[in-house]
Structures are given as structure tokens and as C-alpha cells.
């Protein structure tokens, strides 16, 4: 067991998988000498060589498109997209090519490609550097979509994603990169697509993922001071969704608030709300509420803290659910 930042945990997972399997390659922009703009690949090129840690020409479609070709040849590429808002030039290669190839080959060619995307806001960045595009990918058959909220999950979930024989979109909450936590690299990890109850409670359920898990936990601590016990679930996997864990919680609490940074319309919260009302209709004591980004472009950074869901907006929704 050691204490490390999420960035170090991700680096450790990459290093671990590269050591274990010579077919694992890392590719992206500035991932070599620089170690990536967030330093997640720091030192990897030095240790594994330019052949395996590849500074790509500047083109996201090329990064993912060539990963598809490498996978056909039997490689296991891990692509880094530098920022969330830069993934869109690769959209066709992800949703039309990568996601469908295994299916189109009748299961004869696997696409074990991991695409790491730092996502979300809160770092004072210029536009296109703070987005939450997860729903586009969770909507696409053939992809698996996961996101970590803490260093331990970062380590294990990235290892599991690289090991997975399907394409995995791996969202990294960039504003939590430097938060530290315990990582046990000898542990037996939970299943990749299992949600975690990270704080038990009886009065209402908060579902969050990625950067919002810490915020939801803060909200639950604040609510406890007011006498309400909130159960917090870290969803972890956005496709597939561990609906059972959410439903079990709501059957106990009767109330559900879903929190994410992405705009609420047609976001993960909409999907979770639909599933919960299908399966736990008679358990619900109040309408399911969503707390998320507004249906606007991600705002200029000087006002992002007001735009992003925070403890107060979460507690406001919890209050409405509790008082319904």
C-alpha cells in the first residue's frame, strides 16, 4: 500500500501493463520526452523506447485510426487524447471504425484499444479544455466507457481497461490528477464495470462519477451535519452501467439525485433516471433529480465555478427531493 496522486497511479498502471505485454504501446501528442501535458506518461519513453511510446503527428483521427490498424496487426494500443475537446476530430474513427470492427469481422478481430481522455472542468482553462463528452461514447454500441474518481481506481481501472479485449474510453478527471490516495498494487481489484457505494446512507442516494464523486462526498458530509444521511455511489462505469447497485440503493433510500458536470439533457443522468424509474418505481418517494451542467457551452473559466455543480447545488436538489 502506498500513497500517490492519481497521475502517478495512472503512470504506474501504464508502466505495469507495458512491462507485462510487449504489444502494449502508448501513443499520443507529447507523450514522449514531455511525458504528456499532464505528465501521465512521464518517463515511459525513456524506459520503453520511442518504438513503444510514440509521439504522434498532430492529428487525433490519425491517433485512433492508426490504433485500429495496429490492433488488426495484433497490438494493444493505449491512445492519449490531450484534452476532452480535442477528441471530436477522431469521432468517426472511434464510433464508426473502432467501435464496430469486432462486430463487422464476426468476432474474429479484437480491438483492444484504450483511449485515455482527460476531461471535465475546474482548472481555469481556455475553451475546449474543460468538456465532458462521455455521453456521446456511452451512446455508442461496441465501446466501453469508464471513469475513475480516485488514485486506486485510476490504477486498477486503467490496468483492467488495457487488458480488456474491447475498446475502452477511459475518462480521467483532470482536476483530480494531483489529489492523493492509497493504492494497493497487490490488491484484488473489483470488477471494472461495478459501481461502488462509497458512503452508505439511508435518506437519499447521490450517484456521481469522475470529478463529481469528491464533490458528492463533500455534499454528503455537509448533509450529515444537518442530520441527513446520503448514500453516495461512484458509478465508475458509464457503459455498461451497473444499474443493480443504483437500484438497490434507491430501494433503500427512496430518493435519487444524479450529479455530473456534463450538460443534463440526454446525459448520463437521464439514462440513470429512466432505468431507476423502470425498476424501482414503487420505491421512489420523490422525482429523480439531476444536477449537472446547463445546456450552454462550457463557460469562460472566470465563471466556471458558478456553472459547475457544487456542494450547494447538490444540497439544493437533495433538499427538494427530501421535502417532496
Amino acid at each position: 500500500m502506498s500513497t500517490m496522486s492519481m497521475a502517478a497511479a495512472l503512470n504506474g498502471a501504464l508502466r505495469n501493463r507495458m512491462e507485462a505485454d510487449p504489444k502494449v504501446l502508448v501513443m499520443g501528442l507529447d507523450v514522449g520526452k514531455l511525458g504528456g501535458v499532464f505528465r501521465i506518461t512521464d518517463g515511459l519513453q525513456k524506459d520503453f523506447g520511442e518504438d513503444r511510446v510514440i509521439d504522434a503527428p498532430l492529428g487525433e483521427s490519425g491517433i485512433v485510426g492508426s490504433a485500429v490498424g495496429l490492433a488488426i496487426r495484433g497490438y494493444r494500443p493505449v491512445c492519449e487524447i490531450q484534452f476532452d475537446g480535442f477528441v471530436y476530430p477522431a469521432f468517426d474513427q472511434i464510433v464508426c471504425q473502432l467501435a464496430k470492427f469486432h462486430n463487422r469481422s464476426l468476432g474474429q478481430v479484437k480491438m483492444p484499444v484504450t483511449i485515455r481522455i482527460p476531461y471535465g472542468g475546474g482548472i481555469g482553462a481556455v475553451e475546449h479544455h474543460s468538456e465532458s463528452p462521455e455521453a456521446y461514447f456511452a451512446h455508442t454500441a461496441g465501446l466501453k466507457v469508464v471513469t475513475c474518481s480516485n488514485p486506486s481506481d485510476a490504477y486498477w481501472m486503467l490496468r483492467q481497461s488495457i487488458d480488456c479485449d474491447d475498446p475502452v474510453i477511459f475518462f480521467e478527471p483532470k482536476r483530480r490528477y494531483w489529489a492523493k490516495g492509497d493504492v494497493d498494487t497487490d490488491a484484488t481489484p473489483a470488477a471494472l464495470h461495478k459501481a461502488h457505494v462509497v458512503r452508505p446512507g439511508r435518506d437519499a442516494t447521490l450517484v456521481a462519477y469522475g470529478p463529481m464523486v469528491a464533490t458528492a462526498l463533500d455534499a454528503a458530509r455537509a448533509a450529515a451535519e444537518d442530520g441527513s444521511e446520503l448514500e453516495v455511489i461512484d458509478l465508475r462505469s458509464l457503459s455498461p452501467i451497473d444499474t443493480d447497485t443504483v437500484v438497490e440503493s434507491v430501494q433503500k433510500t427512496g430518493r435519487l439525485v444524479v450529479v455530473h458536470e456534463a450538460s443534463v439533457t440526454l446525459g448520463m443522468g437521464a439514462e440513470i433516471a429512466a432505468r431507476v424509474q423502470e425498476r424501482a418505481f414503487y420505491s421512489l418517494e420523490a422525482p429523480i433529480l439531476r444536477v449537472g451542467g446547463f445546456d450552454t457551452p462550457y463557460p469562460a473559466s472566470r465563471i466556471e465555478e458558478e456553472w459547475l455543480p457544487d456542494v450547494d447545488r447538490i444540497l439544493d436538489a437533495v433538499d427538494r427531493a427530501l421535502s417532496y
Partner: protein
Amino acid sequence: MSLHGQVPPEPDLIQLLTPEGIRVEHPDFPLEITDDEITSLYRDLVLVRRFDAEATALQRQGELGLWASCLGQEAAQVGAGRALRSQDMSFPTYREHGVAWCQDVDPVTLLGMFRGVSLGGWNPNDNNFNLYTIVLGAQTLHAVGYAMGVVRDGAVGSGEKDRDTAVLAFFGDGASSQGDVNEAFIWAAAANLPVVFYCQNNQWAISESVERQSRVPLFQRASGFGFPGVRVDGNDVLACLAVSRRALDEARSGQGPTLIEAYTYRMGAHTTSDDPTRYRLTDELETWRLRDPIERVRAYLVREAGVGQDFFDSLDAESEALAERIREACRTLADPGPLSPFDHVYAEQTDELAGQRAGYADYLNSFEGAGH
């Protein structure tokens, strides 16, 4: 002085067999080939055209939902396809039926996606022939990635004939405008990858002429990316073979990418859903008929190689037998089962999708007499 000088003139085509069937030499592309080998190429061309015609007919009969004919492009495809070695990999668009033929892909396999019984339907590694790719140009990046793997596997420049591997990426004049194709050029050049980019300029991207895509001859684009480009008579199977062999050899030996522009003509419609009479003149088609890729080889075989009528009669019979086999096999291609969409979505099936599948199966079984 104006910065805008004259646009360079259109170059001569590299040609080894004239439309009249006269064998000519090209100083840069010598081709040692026997008459038997030319006879074999002729057989390829004829059988590909017959298969293609049969597929068009099957669409007209309602057996296929769509067909993208390669009529007129047989030489461009067979010339390239026959230049491949068994270890080379090819990345087609959706019209490379002639390349598929050369790679021993059963024509019936190709019909699956056009009939609507599959979304692809073969293993690219079985015949080193990738799945057809419909989104234009996307496959050129797959070729680049594959070639990156080839280099990492040490299968370039080793000097071993059966080991060194080239990758042949097909696209068309329309796709040359796609970002992916241009990215593929950049990647292949920057990493000196063993990729041959093979552009069949068939003059038309559905209704848009090549002038809509480029103000320079397409092969000239390569120079801006830093690798050689050549234009070959795409209706001359010998020239296509010679130029492809040379470019593939250079790729295998580690000299990097080449762009080949096979200058040809789409004699048919874009697909069976298209109506070219709305956008091009019959005169143009007639001009290209005189450059037919098959007739010139036949003229050579009859006049110069002394191939007798027996051969042509027997090839006619072989063609008809092939067409009949394809016709029968197409009609008996089974529809996929209603639960088949759930297959192979993932290599590691999710509980969620397994649940959807089970729910749909129960629904189907709820009907009286359901046999699922």
C-alpha cells in the same frame, strides 16, 4: 511577378500496353512478363468483370440491396492485386472486388454486406484483405497503423523476401479530399512507413468530377508530403502491375511510402442507386470505352501472343460457370437470425447486453408458434 504561375500540364501516363494492344516499354518501369502470365491476368480481368456484372444483375433482380460496380476499373485493381505478396496487407474501400479476387476472397463473401446479411463478414487476416470500409478514407489510417505494426515487427528492410511486408491502401479521387487520407500521408511520410497509397482516380465521386477535388493532378500531391507520386494508365493492367510492384518493393525494403494514381474511369454508375445520365455525357463514356482495360489485352493476346479461340471459348465457359455459382450462392445466403445483432458487439459480452438479448428473445417467444 504573380505568385500564381501556370498550373503544370497534365503528365503522360505510364503505359506498357496501349489501348490498341501494342506492347510498349517505359524506361523507368521495365516489366518482365511472359505471355502465359499476361494470359492469366486476362483471365482475372474477365472473371472479375463477369462477377461484377452478375452482382449488378442480382441487384436488379432484388437479390442484393445495393451493388458498387467496379466496371472499367478491373485493370487498376488486378494490376495492384497481383503485385501483392502473400505477406502483404491490403486495405480496400468498398469497390475493390478485383483486389479481393486476387487475394482469393470468395466473391460470394463480398455479397453479404450488399445483400444485407452482414456488416462485413470476413476476417481481414485470413486473406490479408481488410473489411470493406464505407466511410471514405478511414481505411488509409488503418493501413498506416498496420504498417506501424509491420515496422515494429521487424518486417521491413530485412532483405528476406518472404518476411518484408508492404501495405496497400486503396482510396478514390473523392476520398483524396478527406482529412483522414491527408493525415495518413503525413503519418506514413513522417515515420517512413511501408505503405503504398493507391488512388483509383475514376474521374467521378458520385456526381462530382475530379476537378471538384483538386486543381493539380492527384499524384502530384505526394510531393508536398515528401514522397514520390506516379500516375499510371489505370486501364493498363501491365502498367498497374509494374508500377505497383516497384512501389511495393520499395516499401518492403524500407524506402517508405508512394502514391500511385491509377488514372481510370468508372464506366458504370457509382452504385446501383445512382443515375449518371444526370451529370455526365455519353460522349465521355464512349471515349473511355475505346480505352477498355480488357479489350486491349485480348487484342495483344490474339495478335502478338497467338492465343487461339479455344482459350477464349473455355474462358467464356468458366465465366458463365462462375456467374452461375455466384447466383445460386447469393440466393441461398441465409438471413441472419433476429438475435444476431447481439453477437460480437463485444469480445467480452456485457451483462447489460446479454440482458437485452434475453428480453428480446422472451418477447419473440411470447408470440404463438414462435420458433426462436
